[in-house]
């Protein structure tokens, strides 16, 4: 057992599955000798050869489209989009085909494929390297959208994503790629998709987050505890389809909810969670539902990046406002 980072966990999960299932292949830009610009595929081409770890031409629609064709033949492509900001040329293939092939053919063709992409801000990267656009994919029926927040979940959820018979968009919060290490046994054990994780139990307020922001959210919960406020923390993990039951249960208990996300606020995933609470759990609420969020503006270049990102103190502040609401 070794202590590994989130990105190493992604790497290990892919390596594990390639070792036991020869249908699994990796493709993308610079995934080969270079091991990916973040090293997610480091060493995999050396280990599995360039037939199974394939450097593609520079074309994202192609990467998605070719993966669809391969998956239809029963292979299990794990495609990398170098940054989520470059996934848009592939959106047509993902939305119009990957998400629909099983339904369109009434089950005759299904697509066991994964599209991985690092996402989110906070690493001082150039434009288009820092956005959080998970809401776009979470709105599309037929897709699963998974966001691990730590190394263990990255390992377990990636295995589940590869084994899933349907397309999974696997978004990796690159800001926390190397922020913490977990002891992980490389035993091929998956975590279930479609399930929230309750990361901290509490009674006064439910803080709901996913990906990198979960780290700020947990720190906020610590600070709140120091001030006598007991926060429950939920890692959504599979942002679509949403495990709303776990969230509703928690909110029923705490009576208060605050969603923490990095994306621009309008029409983000947080809106969906809030809407579900407002539809199904609103009468348990002791206060309005809060959303600590990125602003409704373009993710700025990195000099102003910090000004854009939600911070621990913003979460604490909002949580307190909600808890103190009368």
């Amino acid at each position, binding site marked *: 057992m070794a202590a590994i980072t989130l990105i190493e966990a992604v790497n290990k999960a892919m390596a594990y599955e390639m070792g036991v299932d020869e249908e699994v*292949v990796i493709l993308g830009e610079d995934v080969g000798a270079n091991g990916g610009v973040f090293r997610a595929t480091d060493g995999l081409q050396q280990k599995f050869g360039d*037939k199974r770890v394939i450097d*593609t*031409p520079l*074309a994202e*629609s*192609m990467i*998605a*489209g*070719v*993966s*669809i*064709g*391969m*998956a*239809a*033949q*029963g*292979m299990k*492509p794990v495609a990398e989009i170098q940054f989520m900001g470059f996934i848009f*040329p592939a959106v*047509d*293939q993902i939305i*119009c*085909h990957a998400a629909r*092939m*099983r*339904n*369109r*053919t*009434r*089950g*005759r*063709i*299904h697509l066991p494929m994964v599209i991985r992409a690092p996402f989110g801000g906070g690493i001082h990267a150039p434009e288009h390297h820092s956005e959080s656009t998970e809401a776009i994919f979470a709105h599309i*029926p*037929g897709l*699963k959208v998974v966001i691990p927040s730590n190394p263990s979940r990255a390992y377990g959820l990636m295995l589940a994503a590869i084994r*899933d*018979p*349907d397309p999974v968009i696997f978004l990796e919060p690159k800001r926390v790629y190397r922020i913490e290490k977990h002891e992980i046994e490389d035993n091929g054990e998956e975590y279930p998709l*479609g399930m929230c994780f309750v990361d901290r139990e509490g009674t006064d307020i439910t803080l709901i987050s996913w990906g990198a922001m979960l780290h700020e959210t947990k720190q906020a919960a610590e600070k709140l505890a120091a001030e006598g406020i007991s926060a429950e923390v939920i890692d959504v993990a599979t942002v679509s*389809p*949403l*495990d*709303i*039951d776990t969230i509703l249960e928690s909110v029923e208990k705490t009576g208060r909810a605050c969603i923490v996300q990095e994306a621009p606020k309008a029409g983000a995933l947080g809106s969906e969670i809030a809407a579900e609470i407002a539809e199904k759990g609103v009468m348990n609420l002791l206060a309005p539902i809060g959303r600590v969020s990125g602003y409704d503006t373009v993710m700025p270049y990195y000099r102003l990046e910090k000004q854009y990102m939600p911070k621990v103190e913003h979460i604490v502040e909002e949580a307190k406002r909600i808890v103190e609401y009368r």
Partner: protein
Amino acid sequence: MTTVAKFEINYLQFMDENGTFISKQVPPQFAQDIDTVKSLYRDMCLIRVLDQKAYALQRTGKMGTYPAATGQEAVGVGFGSAMTKDDVLVPYYRGQAAMIQHGVLMEEVLLYWGGDERGCDYKVAKQDFPIAVPIATQLLHAAGIAKAMQMRGEKRCVFTEIGEGGTSEGDFYEALNVAGIWNLGVVFVINNNQWAISVPSEIQTNCETYAQKAIAAGIECIQVDGNDIIAVKEASEKAAEKARNGGGPTVIECISLRLCDHTTADDATRYRPEGELDEGWKKEPILRLRKYLESKKAWSEADEEKMKKELAEEVQTAVDNYLNTAVDSPAAMFDNLYAELPERTLAQRELALARGAK
């Protein structure tokens, strides 16, 4: 300046509009077998009958928007007949000729355009892709399928079809490029019917030929007379043979003409120049093959009558099967969304069933 690369585009035609072999090239083996030629003729006629029937169904409210392939039967039947069962077809929406050649049932085609997903659940052509409505996207699927075949060392190939207008999409080029560099066994058939709805080929691209677009991907190409099924089939068989044996991709441009509206939703009189259709009907693929058969004394008016009757019956059976397929349950909207429907959506399924029952 020095010249560092040279290319030329060749054109293949065996038979002219009078059904006469005009090429100096020896006609291919299959063209010398009169039964094969007869069966190609019959298959083209079937598509024409089917299209006419579908058109009539649409006009009487029994069918949705339908894209006929009138005048382009030699393209689909030609390359479709070059495929083996093990090959995979990735069609476009005007692809019924090739689809039916490759085992898709007529009633499936009708059910599809009749607005029912079950029309994509092919009973026979199990691996063939359903029609891709978003133009050019399907070419990338073809490349992916061929990649899987290549990785597994299979001697199969993939055929995919696209209209000449569709070649303007980025996906068209991305597919050619990846097929080129990975040496994939794909045959890209361009049905150059000279119109993309109302947009004539002259304002679609500045190329003299559509075949030459293959040069951008470093792959082989050929232009053929798309009204000459002998040429279409011959080029397709060569390309398929090459593809199955690791020789890589080919682009085949077939020059045809759309002798119908774009679809039943279109009215081509709004944009089509006078006289084009009259000229077109003189060159169309079915008539010339009939002339050839007649010139060989292999076809009579009686044969024609008999065949027409058979085809009408065949098509009618498919139509009956289509019309007798009851509308699916609202549950069908949910049951193949994922392998397993998420909890949350299950409740919606119940709701849909309850609402539907009212």
